[in-house]
């Protein structure tokens, strides 16, 4: 029993770290722009496929795979904002309309992946996988890197937002868009940066995910679901809250396996969301504004 729990705990920490990363990657976009960015899952898939194909088919070094995956993610994320979302903004489209357009684009994109690459899983080659262990619990270097990279990126993001000039501008736009406009701060440009950051983070996450699993067309769906669940669970306004909520989800999902069989993982997450929505709809960590 002790072995099971410690293994689950370790797995839980890995999952928790990834989910925290997922959360902030979508959260920074939603917090700043209020766009329900459905295409986020397409970005995950494309980054994952890039990593897999570049390392396996082209035989490039895995670090180059990481670089390219992140670059593809950033490029796609910024393009979607620049071409699709910005146009919709000019047309004064509602949030629902933008959501549906995003969904349409993502669906078409996944279809394209299906068409060109079919659905057989594509692995990532060349990532150093070494078995490690702490006590009775086993893990690999991939897991270790997942934990380290996730928290380094999250910490980096939070520091960037609180200390750097542009980070503050991003928070300003998210906090009071009208006043930002009043100060001449270009929301279009801020949006581009925010999409770059959010997509880049999700791209790195996709790389790590592919290193552990494989690339399949719908690979981004579950991470996307976790990302927005973490955001609404933690409270939209506080980005640190997205990370914390991600940890809660990851731990709950993994440790829940002590009670429920593995297939019901996602039910735990959904159940948690249901409970929080009923009890504290503005999110676990959000401060009630007087």
């Amino acid at each position, binding site marked *: 029993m002790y072995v099971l729990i410690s293994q689950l705990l370790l797995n839980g920490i890995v999952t928790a770290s990834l989910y925290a990363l997922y959360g902030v990657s979508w959260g920074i976009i939603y917090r700043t722009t209020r766009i329900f960015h459905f295409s986020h899952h397409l970005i995950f898939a494309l980054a994952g496929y890039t990593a897999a194909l570049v390392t396996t088919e082209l035989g490039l070094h895995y670090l180059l795979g990481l670089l390219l995956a992140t670059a593809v993610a950033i490029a796609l994320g910024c393009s979607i904002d620049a071409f699709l979302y910005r146009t919709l903004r000019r047309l004064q489209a509602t949030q629902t309309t933008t959501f549906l357009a995003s969904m349409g684009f993502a669906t078409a994109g996944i279809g394209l992946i299906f068409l060109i690459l079919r659905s057989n899983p594509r692995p990532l080659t060349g990532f150093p996988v070494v078995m490690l262990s702490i006590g009775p619990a086993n893990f690999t270097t991939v897991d270790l890197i997942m934990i380290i990279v996730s928290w380094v990126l999250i910490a980096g993001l939070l520091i960037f937002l609180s200390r750097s000039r542009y980070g503050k501008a991003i928070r300003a736009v998210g906090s009071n868009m009208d*006043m930002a406009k009043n*100060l001449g701060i270009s929301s279009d440009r801020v949006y581009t940066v925010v999409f770059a950051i959010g997509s880049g983070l999700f791209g790195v996450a996709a790389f790590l995910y592919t290193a552990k699993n494989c690339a399949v067309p719908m690979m981004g769906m579950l991470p996307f679901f976790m990302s927005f669940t973490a955001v609404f669970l933690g409270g939209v306004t506080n980005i640190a809250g997205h990370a914390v909520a991600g940890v809660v989800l990851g731990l709950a999902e993994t440790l829940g396996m002590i009670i429920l069989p593995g297939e019901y993982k996602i039910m735990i997450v959904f159940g948690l969301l249901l409970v929080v929505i009923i009890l504290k709809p503005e999110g676990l960590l959000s401060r009630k504004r007087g």
Partner: protein
Amino acid sequence: MLLEIKDLKAGYGKKQVLHGISMSVDKGEIVALIGHNGAGKSTALKATFGLITPGEGEVIYEGMNMTDYPPGAKLDAGIYHIPQEQFLFNDLAVRDNLEMSFFTAKDQGRFESKLNGIYDMFPVLKKRLDQTAGTLSGGERRMLGIAMGLLREPKLILVDEPSSGLSPVAFQGVVQTLQEINNQGTAVLLVEQNVKVAFKISRRVYVMKSGQIILEETGQKLLERNQWWDLF
């Protein structure tokens, strides 16, 4: 004339609030704009500053037609707008708010020295640098809003109801600050509910009702009246 507004019409989508107003502000003047709530005073400021695009009419600043210029361009030209509400970033610290006000300025290198100048003028703010703006008192908030404006060293400040939410004492401090700014050469277009004070400090006053200007008079003359109910 520093600023000339000619026959300005503006609104929000279908709701047209300004039905053609004309005003002017000269260098170093304090001009007041008063009227009942909903008369369109805030809209007039926003349309002048470019937060709303005017439907018709002209905004001429320093002889240039700036009607369709966005806020960024107006800031560069030397105009600064302080809205009535939501004029701070509540989640950000006091220092960060000031930094944001300076974000689009062209002389970023001089930020620190200008900031020190602001601290000299507003010692209260210097004490609360790291405090979140949302936790400041009403008077401190207004001061921060004005300080943010001064950081850009504007030639013309558009201030929207600085007295709202303030105690008379706090408002007095704000008024003094505005007068000091004006003494140093900045023109002020002031929308204000406390008309007595507005009449006292303004050279000229415009009165708005239902989206139109119904009266233009000197502050002095208006002070001499015994009642002002008909202006509302």
